[in-house]
């Protein structure tokens, strides 16, 4: 079952599952099995931005005036985000493109990953502006223990899936003894389980792992410090929210069985493990907050408040993929963050041109379009 960059078989791609069906051949978007991915592509393209458009000259002066413990908070977050986007700028492509079977999903994966590379480039833009020797910062990302611990957690599922798919493509199904790795069993259920857990882990990355850092960036900006950085973070947060929706759709489609009935069984089997991925990530993020504030807090934020915020958004994100919430925190301890997270252009709704009455659950369809003539967000 080796991968082909242009599958010669003739088949109807709208009948394929999202993953582990036929390799995609024609990149066509006129017919889609899951139109949501085409919509996500369009939205992501409409979000396009370039880091260099954001002026950071004031940030440079601000940074020099920060106290040492505040510089530590700022730089550590930047390093952590650099790690996360380094992973995200390549891994969806490397791990998912060889196994994807729908053209719209294939292109969503590429579009998603591309937008992560913009994030990575923005960190270089920021770091270049505030320090004289960027190498010191970048080098620390692979040696700093607090960061590398997190690197293990965010890459482990990706790496396992990639390894298994490589074996599958070269050897097919079976149990293989891999030098230095031991026995690895390749079967369709095992591959699908590895995939499901990978998407769950990426969902958690997009959903939770950035948010301590976002809160600190906006915490500085609330004091009118590092405002160029906050502008960039706003743009990143907007993208991340869309990526999150992408992974939530994949997980929910898998769990529903509507895409691939076998995947629904696997999703049900994995439920506890997925809960554990959420909880572990939340605990790691709380520890991260403690590390950030080890030498002192910043006005309005401390490790405890950030810990509660992590618990709160973890609950929100768990609920979004149909899991029971885990933490006792039921309120956002830093509600002011939402005013920073919201994008500046909420008035602009490109879809408005094609308004359609969309029904969910118990709804009422007795309206006509004129009811929404003056609707805007």
């Amino acid at each position, binding site marked *: 079952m080796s991968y082909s960059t242009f599958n010669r078989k003739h088949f109807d791609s709208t009948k394929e599952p999202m993953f582990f069906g036929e390799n995609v051949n024609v990149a066509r978007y006129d017919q889609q099995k899951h139109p949501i991915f085409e919509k996500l592509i369009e939205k992501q393209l409409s979000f396009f931005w370039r880091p260099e458009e954001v002026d950071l000259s004031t940030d440079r002066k601000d940074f020099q005036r920060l106290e040492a413990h505040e510089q530590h908070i700022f730089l550590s977050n930047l390093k952590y985000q650099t790690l996360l986007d380094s992973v995200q700028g390549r891994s969806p492509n490397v791990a998912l493109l060889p196994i994807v079977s729908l053209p719209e999903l294939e292109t969503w994966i590429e579009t998603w990953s591309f937008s992560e590379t913009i994030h990575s480039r923005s960190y270089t833009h920021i770091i270049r502006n505030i320090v004289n020797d960027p190498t010191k910062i970048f080098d620390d990302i692979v040696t700093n223990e607090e960061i590398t611990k997190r690197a293990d957690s965010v890459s482990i599922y990706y790496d396992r899936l990639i390894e298994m798919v490589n074996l599958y493509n070269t050897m097919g199904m079976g149990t293989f003894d891999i030098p230095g790795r031991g026995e690895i069993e390749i079967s369709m259920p095992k591959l699908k389980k590895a995939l499901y857990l990978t998407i769950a882990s990426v969902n958690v990355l997009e959903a939770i792992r950035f948010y301590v850092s976002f809160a600190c960036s906006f915490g500085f900006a609330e004091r009118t410090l590092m405002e160029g950085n906050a502008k960039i973070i706003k743009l990143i947060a907007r993208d991340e*929210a*869309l990526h999150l*929706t992408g992974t*939530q759709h994949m997980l929910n489609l898998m769990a529903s069985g509507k895409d691939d009935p076998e995947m629904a069984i696997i999703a049900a089997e994995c439920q506890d493990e997925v809960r554990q991925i959420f909880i572990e990530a939340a605990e790691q993020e709380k520890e991260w907050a403690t590390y950030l504030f080890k030498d002192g807090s910043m006005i309005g934020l401390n490790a405890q408040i950030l810990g509660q915020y992590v618990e709160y958004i973890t609950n929100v994100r768990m609920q979004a993929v149909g899991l029971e919430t885990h933490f006792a925190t039921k309120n956002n301890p830093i*509600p002011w963050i*939402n005013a920073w997270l919201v994008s500046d252009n909420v008035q602009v*709704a490109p879809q408005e041109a094609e308004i359609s009455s969309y029904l969910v659950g118990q709804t*009422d369809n007795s309206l006509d379009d004129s009811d929404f003539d003056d609707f805007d*967000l």
Partner: protein
Amino acid sequence: MTQILMTSTSKKEISEKQERKGQAVHRVLLGKKQILVTEEEPLLIQLERAGIHVEYQCREGYCSSCSIKLLWGNVIYPFEPLAWVQSGYLLACCAIVKSDIEIAFFD
């Protein structure tokens, strides 16, 4: 006791104003609170005006942060949100309330 939250106008005034425009007013029950909303704006902004904090991020239907439980009643979406809407939930930032409804935050 059900408490009616109103900002500056009374229910009667709102109802009359809406009736003149041919628009309905609906009750939103949230725990012991009751809020009156119209069909002119999404639920989120009307809850905020009533002093209720709702989590949000995009306010445009693509992040799912504003997802809250819809215990009963009808809402519609003028355009299809990009975020997944779990059954039994609504997205406050873009849902238009079409009947009396009851909502809830986390259990």
